[in-house]
């Protein structure tokens, strides 16, 4: 069965430092991978996606993510964190295997990012 893990409930980083939010996945077919961000009392907003091609994908607000097939990971990164990046981050996967799987996107449990001034 497809699944997504985000091993850290909370990530704290000082403003200006690089940040990484970790994600690993398990699917039966090829993965389509996504990162979303959620600000308080709002719905999720799309940040970036990996479908195929370059393993490093760039997205909104200076975020990027690196796809690593051998480690089944898709970590979110940013070179220099801002206080305004503080939010809840969700990794998600669509399993492009069986038809019964690829209609659905599975979300990880979320990681709360706090950027400290």
């Amino acid at each position: 069965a497809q699944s997504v893990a985000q091993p850290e409930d909370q990530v704290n980083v000082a403003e200006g430092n690089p940040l990484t939010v970790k994600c690993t996945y398990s699917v039966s077919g090829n993965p389509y991978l996504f990162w979303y961000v959620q600000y308080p009392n709002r719905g999720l907003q799309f940040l970036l996606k990996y479908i195929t091609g370059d393993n490093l994908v760039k997205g909104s607000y200076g975020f990027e993510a690196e796809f690593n097939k051998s480690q089944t990971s898709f970590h979110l990164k940013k070179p220099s964190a801002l206080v305004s990046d503080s939010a809840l981050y969700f990794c998600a996967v669509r399993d492009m295997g069986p038809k019964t799987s690829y209609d659905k996107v599975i979300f990880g449990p979320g990681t709360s990012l706090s950027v400290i001034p």
Partner: protein
Amino acid sequence: NAGVTQTPKFRVLKTGQSMTLLCAQDMNHEYMYWYRQDPGMGLRLIHYSVGEGTTAKGEVPDGYNVSRLKKQNFLLGLESAAPSQTSVYFCASSSQTDPLEDQPQHFGDGTRLSIL
């Protein structure tokens, strides 16, 4: 530019009461989804629809029903509310899945539902 609109935004119910949550999207999207968000558990898919008149079960469908009579609307019903259904409910929509160009989901701002 409304996107995905959920009504109501807040609701308090008593155990056993019924209610319907409405989701409307103005982007002509084929796919629509209902999720619930609980602390530490992320988003869990309740039901989804791949087109008008079609619905399918997600990860946690028990106690919920859905209908997609019009392409732009996706309704989530609770027939007999239970305290375990206290949660934040999110609706999302996306354009039809293309294996070569997957479109992201667009989310509403949620409905906060408390069952006493």
